[in-house]
């Protein structure tokens, strides 16, 4: 059995999804090693196997027991989950047959409302597979002989992946040679488009491989992938590569820039409510203006410090709208820094409606359109402040 597994053909395995790539061996929860069955096959083997089972070490025994316990546990959890789902469906008045995980989540949120900040701390009901970490399947048989040929590297899945990459690379080279030998020289292969995605992080790879990697090993793996994806014909293995890449936050997700409104005199204007720390600012930017600014019914000297005035002027100068628009702002709460920051954000957001897309992008890159999420850090007990500690006494 162990030998056969080595010669498993790669292509058929590759495209089944990353998980299936490595779960060639039965998982703990699915299969329990049926010792009695293997024993009763062949009379001759029986004696041999019987004697082998007798020779089974204590370590092996306890390993098997643990596997069984875990298996049963997961089965029990799964059973409870399914029952629980049906109960929930009945409670919520929905059809138990078509009760999906999203429905479950909604129901839990409704029945157990939580004010906790971290989503992971809130009550949840999910499939046991998602809650209980996956374990590797039995890595060796009854006789202690490992299934995987690279078992004694202690990271068989990792090294398998590395070897696969090397093999594939050679295959791509052979493909390239074939193309060249056929004389199709001008045919440029389509480039592998990796923009908008990044290599999945170390934690994710570890979850997939079910092995912990050192940083050096992870870096090595990524380097290998990079080299692989730089091959001119790497587009052939696109699906394989994309299994190990995750999409970045879609930059195509442009926020809808609101349309300009018109007031009674026909002048275009835009309003925005901006926040910074605990201060709120309501900013109205009016077009066809001369650069008049009004903050809480006073002029720019509402802010006495130069740095606060600079904050206000920055978006207007940056987008070349200084002297072309009027600004009316009301602000309250917190201190001058937060207030000026809030007004700055308000002005920037309003100016989006007045300027072209290129300027909006420049503003975004300049950080004018991002909400500043920094808030005052909480004081912790046992410390004088958020970070400051009490005087440390050696004795």
């Amino acid at each position, binding site marked *: 059995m162990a030998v056969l597994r080595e010669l498993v053909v790669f292509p058929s395995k590759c495209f089944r999804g990353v998980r299936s790539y490595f779960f060639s061996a039965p998982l703990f929860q699915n299969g329990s090693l049926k010792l009695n069955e293997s024993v009763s096959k062949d009379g001759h083997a029986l004696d041999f196997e019987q004697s082998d089972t007798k020779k089974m070490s204590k370590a092996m025994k306890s390993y098997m027991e643990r596997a069984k316990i875990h298996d049963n546990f997961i089965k029990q959890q799964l059973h409870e989950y399914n029952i629980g789902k049906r109960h929930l469906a009945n409670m919520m008045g929905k059809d138990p047959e078509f009760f999906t995980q999203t429905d479950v989540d909604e129901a839990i949120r409704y029945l157990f409302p939580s004010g906790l900040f971290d989503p992971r701390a809130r009550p949840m009901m999910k499939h046991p597979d998602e809650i209980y970490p996956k374990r590797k399947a039995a890595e060796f048989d009854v006789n202690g002989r490992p299934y995987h040929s690279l078992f004694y590297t202690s990271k068989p899945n990792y090294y398998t992946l590395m070897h696969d990459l090397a093999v594939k690379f050679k295959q791509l080279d052979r493909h390239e040679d074939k193309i060249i030998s056929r004389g199709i020289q001008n045919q440029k292969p389509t480039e592998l488009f990796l923009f908008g995605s990044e290599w999945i992080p170390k934690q994710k790879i570890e979850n997939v491989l079910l092995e912990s990697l050192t940083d050096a090993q992870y870096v090595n793996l990524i380097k290998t992938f990079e080299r692989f994806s730089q091959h001119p014909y790497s587009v052939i293995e696109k699906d394989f590569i994309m299994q190990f890449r995750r999409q970045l936050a879609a930059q195509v997700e442009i926020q809808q820039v609101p349309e300009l409104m018109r007031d009674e005199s026909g002048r275009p204007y835009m309003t925005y409510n901006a926040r910074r720390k605990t201060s709120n600012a309501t900013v109205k930017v009016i077009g066809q203006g001369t*650069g008049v*600014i009004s903050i809480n019914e006073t*002029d*720019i*000297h509402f802010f006495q410090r*130069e740095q606060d*005035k*600079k904050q206000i*002027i920055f978006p*207007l*100068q940056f987008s070349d709208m*200084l*002297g072309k628009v009027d600004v009316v702002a009301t602000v309250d709460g917190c201190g001058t820094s937060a207030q000026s920051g809030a007004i700055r954000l308000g002005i920037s957001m309003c100016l989006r409606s007045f300027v072209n897309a290129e300027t909006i992008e420049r503003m975004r890159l300049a950080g004018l359109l991002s909400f500043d999420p920094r808030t005052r850090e909480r004081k912790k007990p046992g410390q004088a402040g958020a970070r400051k500690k009490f005087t440390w006494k050696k004795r």
Partner: protein
Amino acid sequence: MIRFSPTETITNTFRTNELDPINHRKDHDGRFYSISQSVKKQLFSGGGLPKEYKELSETLNGLSIMVRKPAIELITYLNKTNFDAPVNRYVLYGKTGSGKSVSLAHILHYGSNAGMVLVHVPWVPNWVRFPKGCTPSVIHPNKYDHPIESVEWLRHFSTQNGPLMQKLELKTTETYAWSKREMTAVGSPLSELIDLGMNRAKHATDCVSALLCELKKAALSKRCRVLVVIDGFNSFFSPKSRVRREDKSIVLPTEFVLTDAFLSLTRNDWNNGAIVVSVDASAHPSELRESPLPRYQLGKQGFEHLDPFIPIEVPNYSEKEFHSQIDYYVERNWLQQPKARTERGRAELSFTSGNHPLSLMKLVAPY
């Protein structure tokens, strides 16, 4: 550094050739006219120009004042005044640092050129907040003298009006007995009165009162025309001063002899003159700085004293005035950053200073 002299032909648009304030009209609005060193020394050596403004003018090689709307308005009124009618009171008001003192300086120059006797108090809070030693008055019970300040003021008066007083040859109309042995007889020249005050600090305050009284009478009898210019007038009605009695109680400004003297002069019971006064929030303690408007700054007492008056607002720079100011700074090489001379730079300066004269001056300063 270009040294601007009065005879130079002017090719730029922010200056004007017209150096006589009497001729300043609307088309001079936003333009700078220069004041010669001799005039500056005569008029402002005892005060009258704000300290930083004066220092800047010395750095920039010559005092140039911008002709602005409030001053033009005042000059038009003063030119058209019917001097047989009781005196008009004009009150300049506006935010601190908007240009009231400089407008008053402009009017002072006008008065000097128009041959008016100048009664000029550079900054009243100096008497109320930083008196150099108040003594109880001998003649007036429960009142307080300012011996040192009165001497200084008499000196300032004689510097400003020296040549004119010599020409006018005004005489006292009554006897003033200073002590058992000292007295000033009727018909003695006013210069004698002034000299007495300058030499005898003890009697200086009363000299000032006497002088103001005499000037009032002289104006009434058409012997001279008097222009009263007082900066920070609302300080006379301030709720507190820095003067304390022995029992640590605060002396109010209304209990000063000087206050009485100037309040009597600013009453409209005489003619052949004009009274130009400014009220500023910074002349009051911080509790009374909410609004720059005259009624608030003068309080009930002050308002009743000055009512009826003509209020003249001194606003922030208009766009034309602002550009003129920047042109001046650029020409004088005070604005050295090349970016400051561009349109964008000007827009930034305008925005950050809010077109406020004092803010602009501070913004543009290298310190």
